[in-house]
């Protein structure tokens, strides 16, 4: 199996992530979709790292994982703060700021 198949796989995962962000209304699922996008990037980086035979991509992957974890922590904190006000995690109901 060629390594290029992994690139197709990662692009499919990334697209699914984008669709998830656009379509799903639950904040938690949106967060998971963002995670999906970041993991598609990780897969991409590792494949390219293997292709080029250097470790730069793998090092970057470690950074991306770290950042993704931190980002999720911040995101969940914001979601909790909203949930305390509105008792909902539905994005459509968070709409007092517009135009």
């Amino acid at each position, binding site marked *: 199996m060629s390594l290029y198949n992994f*690139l197709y796989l990662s692009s499919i995962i*990334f697209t699914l*992530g*984008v669709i998830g*962000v656009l379509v799903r209304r639950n*904040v938690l699922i*949106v*967060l998971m979709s*963002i995670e999906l*996008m*970041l993991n*598609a*990037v990780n897969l*991409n*980086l590792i*494949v*390219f790292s293997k*292709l*080029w035979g*250097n470790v*730069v*991509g793998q*090092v*970057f992957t470690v*950074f*991306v994982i770290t*950042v993704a974890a*931190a*980002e999720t922590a*911040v*995101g969940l*904190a*914001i*979601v909790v*703060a*909203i949930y305390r*006000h*509105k008792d909902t995690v539905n*994005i459509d109901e*968070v*709409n*007092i*700021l*517009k135009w």
Partner: protein
Amino acid sequence: MSTKSLIYVSFLPEIILGAFALLIMCVDPFLKKREKVFSTIISIFAIVVAFISNLLFLSRDASLITFNGMIYFDFYSNLLRGLFLLIGFLVSLFAFKYIEREDLFPGEFSSLLLFALIGMDLMAISANLIMTFIGLEILSMSTYILAGFKRKNLKSNESALKYFILGGVSSAILLYGISFLYGFTGTLSYRGIANVLSKGSGFIGSPLLFLGMGMILVGFGFKIALAPFHVWTPDVYEGAPTVVSGFMSVGPKAAGYAALLRIVFQIFPFTLPLWRELFVYSAILTMLIGNLGAIIQKNVKRLLGYSSIAHAGYMLLGIIAADVMGMSGIIFYLFAYLFMNLGAFGVISIFEGKGEKFVTIDDYRGIGFKYPQLTFPLSIFLLSLAGIPLTAGFVGKFVLFGAALMENHMGLVLIAILASLISVYYYLKVIVYMFMKSPIIEGEEIEVRYSGVALFSVLVCAFFVLYLGLFPSYLLNLSKEAVVFLGI
């Protein structure tokens, strides 16, 4: 200087900021409520020390790559670091009274501000896409939290959520672009990628490279609020605490431009024609949407949000011109924009009163001659934002538009001038409401309470807006000296 000490010297301001940010986090829990001001003072002290260390170790004639090829140590880094530290300094002065009035947490605020400054610095000085990404994320994550800093205010929460989701998506897209670039060249250092790309022009049509470039543009376009990616800006600025909105309107924008300039001119100088077209359309859209959107706004914070979109568009003209004049115009404009916009947000943060009650233009009726010490500086800031002569905004626009004109972008410059004519309307509207309309009789009126510190920083901003408008040559020369290191 030995190489070992050079590594630390080139990175000293960030080390200082980081150390003090951690110190604040350690000290703050042990302070009593009355003593909390202490942590704000520490953060101001840290920023001053970092600024001095930045001044002490300038690198005016050589561009060095230190920290194992991770950061550039050149005058461009020095100058932009100075810009960021100035932003941090003014924001913490404005925050002094604001945090106390709104009953927020000074310790967390100041340490997050310092972390954001570190992130901005890293974006401007990085020589490697890994470092750029880390800097971007440090900055973004601090600003997500700062935007939602009023934990008990639904508006603030909402703005944080919006900023967070869109920011998360945009940084994922940016990363995907970086991964393609890595796949194309096999390296992530700016110089390495530029070397690979300079070897042949056959690359330019390659879809992988095009995807990578485009996605990187999306990521930075989000940070600096360029047109198709600007949607979050007004909402986030309206909801976030006013001081933070002020910071977000100048900080991440300046950092985004600093990093974008490095990326465009140090990685992709050979593919500039490809970028230029994208930039031209984006600039036109950005200027029109920003200015037309601002016309109908009633909320002053939201109005400045739209106007900040427009200003991002003006600055893009410098990149499109792509010569020394355009580049130095961007850096000059970043300085001018820092003083005028931060000053305007500072005055708004004083006028709005506890709980941000008075933020619509109608609230500003008839306060002009009641509080001249604040309304006159605000008028100066607004006139400068509109680009009236004798102010810094005018000189900045003049340089940027002139640079674009010299590279034969006639139509673009015409649109830019029309756009800034539109902007005169809504900036003057605020001034007219302040000085020429009588206040509505019933209802509450603005009651101004401010600290001497806030007034001092408003006056400093006003002074520099006028100073840069009258004597721009010193800063322009510095910017020219700095952009030479981008290798244009």
